[in-house]
């Protein structure tokens, strides 16, 4: 998770917790997907790997949300608007590609 110099320890720990939980989920997902492939279960492997990929895509979204939260908390509206715009672009990039 992205962190600014003014982060409070409690909030930093919370972000750390979320980041590590997501990262572990990615590691477990990748390992399970590959193991299932090796065990001859290609359909389940593809299914799990695709969901792991969704989780990987969420990582940067959470990072930018974290920066947005920081800027709003500091009432630095200029950077908050930029971060919100980046999130909007990401949402457009994802939603416009949904089947």
């Amino acid at each position, binding site marked *: 998770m992205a962190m600014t110099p003014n982060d409070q320890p409690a909030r930093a720990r919370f972000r750390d917790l979320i980041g590590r939980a997501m*990262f572990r989920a990615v590691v477990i997902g*990748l390992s399970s997907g590959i193991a299932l492939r090796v065990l001859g279960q290609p359909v389940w*492997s593809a299914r799990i*790997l695709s969901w792991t*990929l969704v989780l990987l895509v969420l990582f940067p979204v959470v990072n*930018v949300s974290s*920066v947005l939260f920081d800027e709003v908390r500091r009432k630095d509206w200029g950077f908050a608007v930029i971060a919100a715009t980046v999130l909007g672009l990401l949402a*457009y990039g994802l939603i416009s590609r949904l*089947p």
Partner: protein
Amino acid sequence: MQTADLYALLAGGLAGCLGALVGIGGGVLLVPILNSVMGLPFTEAKAVSLVAVLATSSSAGLSNRRLLNARLAVLLLFFSVSGSTLGAGLLMRFSESTYQLVFGLTAAVIAAVMFVRLNKRNVLPADADPGMLGGQFHDDDTGRDVVYRVTRVPLAAAVSFAAGVLTSFIGIGGGILIVPLLNSLCGVPLRVAAATSVLMIGVTAVPSLAAHWAHGFLGDFHVAGMTAVGVLMGFQVGRGISPRTQVRSLKLIMAGILVVVAVRYLGWR
């Protein structure tokens, strides 16, 4: 495990190691390896490379916080994500040889700039004003607190936009453009540039990966999964090596990679 799996794992490991050392996603090496060595179609190699970029960025997000300049990152992300979104919309419009020529030339120019400015440190006196986008950090190389100021922001914005377009067109994360730019032309120390870039490349890859995924370029996800596992392991290796690596060595590694990439893409023609 098949030979192809091993190649994917090793290529991902190399990309992850580079990500930890110099803040690039490793796409510049992954795409040629996946395409030329493993024989994947170029479009699938690009898509797998984007997954590796995301994996590198996610790994780095847990370890680079001290050096990350989040404000600079989010400002430049506005431009790089715009470029990536535009590039994703034009994904099938141009020929691959055009992209290879442009990228080879760009890599050659950046390598030249890095070699010329190899010893430039981009640091100010400890009491200097870092400005709105600058910052400070403790430099393990010198054991001192370092202050830096970001210059040439419009240039950084333009190159970030170009890096975003390239992310969609040739499957790289754009770090190979952003890190040398921030370091050599915008006054950002290399380690900060690398930490900022590695956050940026993950975000920039999202619209591009979504487009590649929607076009069905990711296949059955198996190669992407193996490559991502390689990235996660390689990143840990790179992080272990990083504290013992001097900034000058990092610059040399990066310039060397750029030369290889330039020769590869220009020599192909």
